[in-house]
Structure formats: C-alpha cells, structure tokens
C-alpha cells in the first residue's frame, strides 16, 4: 500500500516536470505574430464611452478610433487638421470647414450635425468633458460641412475643446436612451482604427480602417493590441518573456538594468508628464495643524527639503527636481522658477525670527502654543514615497520639526484629506505627498488651487486667494496664446511664493520595447510613445520581422522576412511630413499562412500527458469511492 502511494506521489511530480518541459519546447505558431502588442500596467480600461471614461488607457486606446476636429502635434503648440480641413478664428468665433469624404466605420458620412451633437453630449453635466466646453456660448451649423463656434476665448477653445471632444455618430447616439451609462461597444468612430475585439481586463484589439479619409494616416500594421496588466512589473515580465512588444506607461526602475542588458530591448527615458509634490494644508477652515497656515513656516519647511536628493533617492536618475506645479513639457510651464535652496541654517533662522521656540523635547512650538508636529500621508502603492517622506522627516528633525510618515491606500488617504464636518467638506490632514499627471497642452492643473476646489475634492492644499481666482478666469478668456502664457506664469509665481504645494520632482520614467519586433514611432512625445498621450504611435508603428521562436516555423518566417523591406527608415514627424505607409509591411502582414501544425509526436505525447493528469484526479476519486464501498 505505502509503496503504491509513494510511487503515485513520485509519478505525479515527474508528470508535472515532464509536462512543463514538453510545453516549454513546443510553441504554437499563429497569426498572433502579426499583431503588435503593447502592455499597459496599472488602472485598466474602463469604458468605450468617450464622455464618461476616466482611465488614461481608455482615452489613449481609442484616440485613433474617434476623430477630433484637430489634433496636437508633439510640441502641443501646433494643430494638425483631422476632421476639420481648415479653420478661421477671430476674437469671438472659430469656424471649421470639415473634410467632405469622411465616413464613420459603418459607412455613414461625418457632417457638421455629428460635430454639433458630439459637443452637445460633451456639455452634459455627466460628461467628463463638460468643463472643457464651458467656454462655448453658441454653435451654428452653417452647412453640412461648415460649423461655427461662438466662444469666450478661441485659443482656449482650440487647446481644451477642439482637440479633446471626440466626434461620435449622431445617428447612433441620438437613439441611445441614457448616454451616461451607454457602454458604446463596439464603438463607431471615424478614425484610422476600428475596435474589433475587447475582453474586459485582458485586451483591446484594434484593426486598421483601410477606407480612412486621410490616406497618409493609414496605419502601417493591420492590428494593434493593448494588453492590460494589473501593474507595470507584471507587464515588464511579460515583455521579457516575449508575450508583448512594448510596455507603458513606464517600466519599474528595478527591472531597467535587466532590460538594458538584454540585446532585444530598447530602453529610453520619456519626456515628463508626471510629477510628485508635497501639499501643505493651509485651508483657513481646515482641521490640520494650524502652524502650516503661516507662510514663514512653509518657507522654512521648503528650505529644509533637498529636492535633488529626493529625485535621486526615489527614481535613481529617472527624475529631476521641479519648482512649479507642472512638468517642463507643459507649454504653460514657467522656466524662471528655481527650487528653494536647501539650507537648514536659513530654515532655522526663519523659524527663530518668527518666534517658533524649541520646547524641552527639541520640537518647536508656535507663539500661541501649537507644537510643530505633523503627519505626512503617502500612498502605499508607491513604496519609494515612504522613503521620501522619511528622508524629509529626518531633515525637518534638524530644524526642530517632528513629522510622522503614514502610508495608506489612496482611498483611505482621500477620506482623511477631504473629511466631512457637518456635511461640509474640509481638509483634515497636515501634509500629503502625491502626484499629478498633466496633459502637456492644458493649463487646467492650475485650477486645483482655486478657492472653491476644497469642496470639490481636488485641492489638497486649501489655497484660498481671490486674486488667483480672478487671474484664472482672465486666463480662460484670454484671446491669444502669449496672454494665456503670461497669466499662467504669473499664477505659477504666486504659487511658488505662497507654497500651497512644494513641488518635488518630475519623472522621466523609462519605457521599453522589443526593437527586434517594432520600430517607426517617435520617442520624444511627452509621456513617451507608450505613455498614453501619443496618438500617432499606433499609426507609425511597424513590425521589424516576425519573431522566430519555434524551429517548426523557421521556413514560414524566412519567407516573410525576405518580402519585408521598409522605405521609410527614419521616424517621420507628424506635423510636416505625412506618415508614410509602406506597402511592403502590408504584404508581410497579409501573406502569413495559417499556423504551422506541431508534429504528430508532440501531439500524441501531449495527449498522453493530459490523460495522465486526468488519471491522477480520477485515481483519487476511484480510490476514495472503493474505500467507502468496502467499508459499508
């Protein structure tokens, strides 16, 4: 009996080993090789409805499914015509002339009525885009292909609305009973890609729309798949295992060296769109430590933080210190601001002069008796922030300030920061460290510091300044870009002086792709090609050559590589040169034959292996039942 059992145990372990070796030797070759796969780690795809989606990946994955009136180029200062062929602007109106041969994926022509209806949907209170189209006062349809917008500021309209509102088909959306919960799958747009398959939590599959109206935008590859991962580490592992061809929004610093040492991969730094900051609760009605409302205290604390050191500590060469509330890629970034000098003596002097005397325990106490003891909240999903917080606490201890770092999930953090007292939202924390992703062509980040933003649950500093509020309104009504910039700079200087935020560092996160597989896209878009901002990457991406991982498929792939040749070798810029589509790639992707069949021996041995597994399970069942039969 016991020998049988021992044999059984040993055999089953052997079977496992044998099966896994078998499986590692055979690889099923299939048409998946012709699909470019981009992994995305982090918050997954939420919905196709472009008016209710909040996930970055959703907007990015569908950026070439829907058209907008105009598009940004990679400098975010020039506009590329999309559905609008041309446009005219005066100080109150923007008139768009639409292209005449554009059709939705179902064949219905795109007209001014669709544009009008899309802007109507965007302006609904449930729409995420309603603040973008706030400045629109009136829309006039002049004819089928001409539409006029009466707006507060034409330049702000171009930056925030014309580039952002996706044009959806009126003939479909007007029949939807509740567009706010409409899942919009499969989505019908007019863009160069169609969505052909979507598995929630797994992937979205895009297919080239060969009848797209801008011939120079026709994608180079037939199919692009965006694969969702719960975090960037899993996505990076999948890249290394060859499951996918690229990783976004970034690869973790921990695996960068492994990727760099592997000749298959190209690793590069992206232009920053993400920055980290420290927010001081200075809200007059807030519940935090009241000493933080004193500007001298905030200045002293700022002088006691070495931002360059923190950037290095957290991101090992992939972050730079920052002095203002937006990253350098934002066109409204104020380059005149420099980080506060790290000077503990100066910090001590400032506090001494302001009357913050050290208590018996070495911790300073305000003139009216409040000790300078703070709690710093940090999100626990970013472990490096705990170290950043602890380092700050260490510096502060040298100026007589005690700080306690608390890591928690963002949900709990938000509930501490925006607490409800008597049904009114107020700020309940002292200090928090968090991040913002900032769209390069958008000054909206400045609205976080408006006086009414505490009750909205966006301001974690409680900055209240009527002068700032009126400047923001002025900016939204400015008539030209220079005025917008001038006002935006003035606002940033106010924030620099008043310190609701102490900006820490911006992240030039590494991204990676398999250079043996894909090529052809720009690396210098803000956020990188896979960061969720670059809408041209899907159009420009090209397959280098199909991977040859299985010996059985070598003949097929050799045949393919010979037919693949590229006419455009350098990445082409989106603004000036048209995006060249190479017919050769299309040949390569369409001539692929069906999957090569594995040999008979493999097949049979595999079936045997499966049978053995089944026997293991069945054996236990039978063994258990016979035992019962005898016993009763």
């Amino acid at each position, binding site marked *: 009996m*016991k020998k049988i*059992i021992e044999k*059984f145990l040993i055999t*089953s372990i052997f079977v496992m080993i044998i099966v896994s070796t078998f*499986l*590692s030797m*055979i*690889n*099923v070759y*299939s*048409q*998946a090789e012709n699909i470019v*796969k981009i992994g995305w780690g982090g*918050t*997954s795809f*939420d919905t196709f409805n472009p008016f*209710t989606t*909040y996930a970055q990946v959703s907007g990015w994955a569908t950026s070439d499914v829907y058209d907008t009136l105009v598009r940004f180029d990679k400098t975010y200062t020039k506009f590329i015509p999309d559905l609008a062929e041309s446009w005219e602007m005066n100080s109150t109106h923007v008139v768009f002339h639409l292209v005449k041969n554009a059709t939705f994926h179902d064949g219905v022509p795109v007209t001014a009525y669709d544009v009008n209806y899309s802007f109507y949907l965007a302006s609904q*209170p*449930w729409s*995420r885009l*309603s*603040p973008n189209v706030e400045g629109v006062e009136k829309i006039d349809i002049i004819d089928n292909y001409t539409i006029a917008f009466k707006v507060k500021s034409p330049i702000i309209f171009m930056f925030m609305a014309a580039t952002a509102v996706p044009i959806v088909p009126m003939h479909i959306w007007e029949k939807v009973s509740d567009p706010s919960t409409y*899942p919009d799958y499969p989505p019908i747009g007019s863009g160069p890609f169609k969505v052909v398959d979507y*598995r*929630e*939590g*797994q*992937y979205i599959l895009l297919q080239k729309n060969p009848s797209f109206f801008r011939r120079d935008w026709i994608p180079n590859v037939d199919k692009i*798949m965006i694969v969702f991962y*719960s975090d960037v580490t*899993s*996505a990076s*592992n*999948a890249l290394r*295992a*060859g*499951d*996918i061809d690229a990783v976004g929004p970034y690869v973790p610093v921990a695996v960068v060296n492994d990727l760099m040492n592997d000749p298959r991969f190209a690793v590069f730094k992206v232009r920053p769109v993400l920055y980290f900051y420290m927010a001081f609760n200075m809200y007059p009605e807030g519940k935090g430590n009241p000493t933080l409302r004193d500007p001298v205290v905030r200045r002293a604390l700022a002088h006691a933080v070495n931002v360059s050191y923190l950037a290095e500590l957290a991101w090992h060469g992939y972050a730079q210190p920052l002095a203002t509330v937006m990253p350098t890629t934002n066109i409204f970034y104020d380059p005149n601001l420099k980080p506060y000098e790290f000077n503990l003596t100066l910090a001590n002097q400032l506090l001494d002069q302001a009357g913050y005397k050290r208590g018996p325990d070495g911790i300073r106490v305000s003139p009216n008796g409040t000790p300078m003891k703070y709690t710093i909240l940090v999100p626990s*999903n970013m472990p490096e922030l705990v170290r950043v917080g602890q380092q700050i606490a260490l510096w502060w201890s040298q100026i007589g300030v005690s700080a306690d770092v608390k890591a928690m*999930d*963002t*949900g709990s953090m*938000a*509930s*501490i920061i*925006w607490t409800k007292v008597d049904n009114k939202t107020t700020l309940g924390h002292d200090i928090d460290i968090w991040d913002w992703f900032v769209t390069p062509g958008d000054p*909206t980040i400045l*609205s976080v510091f408006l006086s009414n933003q505490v009750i*909205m649950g*966006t301001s974690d500093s409680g900055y209240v300044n009527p002068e700032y509020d009126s400047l923001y309104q002025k900016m939204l009504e400015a008539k030209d870009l220079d005025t917008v910039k001038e006002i935006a700079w003035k606002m940033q200087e106010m924030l620099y002086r008043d310190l609701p935020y102490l900006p820490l560092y911006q992240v030039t996160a590494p991204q990676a792709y398999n250079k043996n597989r894909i090529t052809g896209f720009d690396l210098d878009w803000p956020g990188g090609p896979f960061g969720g901002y670059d809408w041209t990457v899907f159009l420009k991406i090209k397959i280098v050559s199909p991977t040859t991982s299985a010996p059985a498929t070598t003949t097929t792939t050799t045949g393919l590589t010979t037919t693949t040749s590229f006419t455009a070798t350098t990445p082409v810029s989106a603004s000036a040169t048209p995006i060249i589509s190479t017919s050769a790639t299309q040949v390569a992707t369409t001539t692929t034959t069906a*999957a090569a*069949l594995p040999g008979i021996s493999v097949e049979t041995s*595999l079936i045997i292996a499966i049978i053995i597994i089944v026997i*293991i*399970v069945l054996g*236990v069942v039978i063994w258990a039942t016979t*035992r019962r039969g*005898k*016993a009763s």
Partner: protein
Amino acid sequence: MSSRYSRYVVRRFLGAIIAVFAILTINFFIFRILPGNPIELLFRNPRLTDEQIRALEAQFGLDKPLIDQYFIYLINVFQGNLGLSFFYRQPVTSVLMPRMINSLILVLPSTLAAIALGIVAGLISAWRRGSKTDVSILLIGMSLYSLPTFWLGGIFILLSIYYLHLPVSGMLTYGAVYSSWTDLLIDFLRHFILPFITLTLVMFGEFMIIMRNTLIDVLTEDYVTVAIAKGLSQTKILRDYALRNAMLPTISIIAINLGLVVAGAVLTETVFSWPGVGRLIYDAILNRDYPILQGAFLFITISVVIANLIADLLYGLLDPRVRYG
C-alpha cells in the same frame, strides 16, 4: 434514509439560508465602512464640477440615505440585478461571470491537485511518523505553506524568462488564430502550467499537514493497536480503520477550499496576469467599486455556504454521531 437524517438535512438547509441573509447584509455595510468615496477617488480630476459630481452620485444611487440604498440593494439582488459597476459602467454580472469562469479554470484543477497530493503525502508522512521521509515531507509541506505566493510565482517567471520560455501572462496568446483544437489546447496549457504549479504548491502544504496530524491522532487510538495486533494488513488498517476516521476534518477543509474556488487566487492571478476574479477584486478595492465587490463577495460566500452544506450532509452520512447528536 431515516427521518432523523431528513430532519438533519432540513436543519442544515435552514442554517444555510440564514447564513446567506446575514451575508447579504454584512456584504452591503462592510464596504460602506471602508473610508473613501468612490466618486472622489475614481475621478480625482481637477476639471470635475460640483454639478458633475452630483450627477455621478445620482447615477449610482449614492445620493440617497444609506438605509434606502440597503433596501434598494436587497430588492435588486432578489431580482438578479447586482447593480452597475462604478468603474466599468456595466452590469456587475456581465463583468463578473467571464472572470469567474476564468478563475474556475485555474483554481479548480489546482485545488484538486493540491488535495490529491496533500492527502497522499500526509498519509505517507503519518504512517512513517518520525522517519526521514516524514521529516522531509513535513519540511517541504511547511516551507511551501509559508512561502509568499508572489515570490514563488516570481521565481517561476524568472525561470521561464531565462530557461523555460513559457508565456508568463494571460490565459491564451491574445489575438492568436488556431488551425486546430490541439493548437488551442497546447497554447492554453503553455499559459496554464506555471500558475497551476504555483497555486498547487502553495495549497499543498495545508492539506498535507491537516491529513498527517489527524491521521497520527487516529493511528494512536486503541482500535488501531488492536487491528495491528490482529495481524491485519497495512492496507486494510489504513483504509478501513484509520482513514475513515481521519477523513472528517479533512472534508471540511476541502469543502471550504472548493467553495473558495470561485474567489480565484488574488496573488497568483496578479503575478501571472490571469484574468480571474481575484485580480478583479484587487482592482475593485483600489477603485472602491462597491457593486463589483458586493457581487463578487456574494458569489463567493454563497458558494462557500453551499460547499459547507454539502460537507455537512456528507458528514451525516460518514459519521452517524453527527446526525443523531
């Protein structure tokens, strides 16, 4: 079956129904106790206006008093409506069902394999108590039991990247077109094998330890000594005397684990990017997606209750003391 047994069955059924009701209630309130408002969190967005936030709250029924929300929830559950996911903006069932099937595909075979291996290893270990075999099995079982899943999974992923060249994410090669069902099967198995082994190894220890310890207790009983003295064969002693009595605690462990099969395996699924319920729950907690969490927990708890009910009924059959007690 005696009327006593049927009375026992009825009592168990009533117990199960009460348990499900309790679950429904706890299920609703437990997520409301969690700090954090889903609207604030999902849409941390400087552009949201007050009007928009209110519209979103109304859309998900979050503007009503808690007690009203509770009754609406109860009524909807009985109509089979688990609500609309905050994050996916889709009915919960349509998000949950495919995920549950994916989880079953991974977790059921792994649980069965772990049970089979665990019982067998536990048997050997108990029979040869104190021997080198026992010590080594115990050591292996204990260390596997205490290994962090993500670490074990990570080791397999590294092995795969450098030596095995197996895929480390997903259930199938996404976008693949298969020319025959064997291709599909092979592709599936290539994706399946690593998470399967990881999960089996992690669960193996639990079953092995339970089996070994209860069997050791039984083997020291007088009737086993008598059986040995009678000169009965090892097989007969183990099978007819020891195992039957040692089976009871093992059955309840097995029942709970089989019930938990629909819960997926959070860590294994996350490490291997398996699109199962575990990963869905993980994401839903981060997003404060109450309806998804409620739906998932409802299914899990009901399935555990049913598995326990079956275990109870089996108990009644296996051990007369239970039904007459």
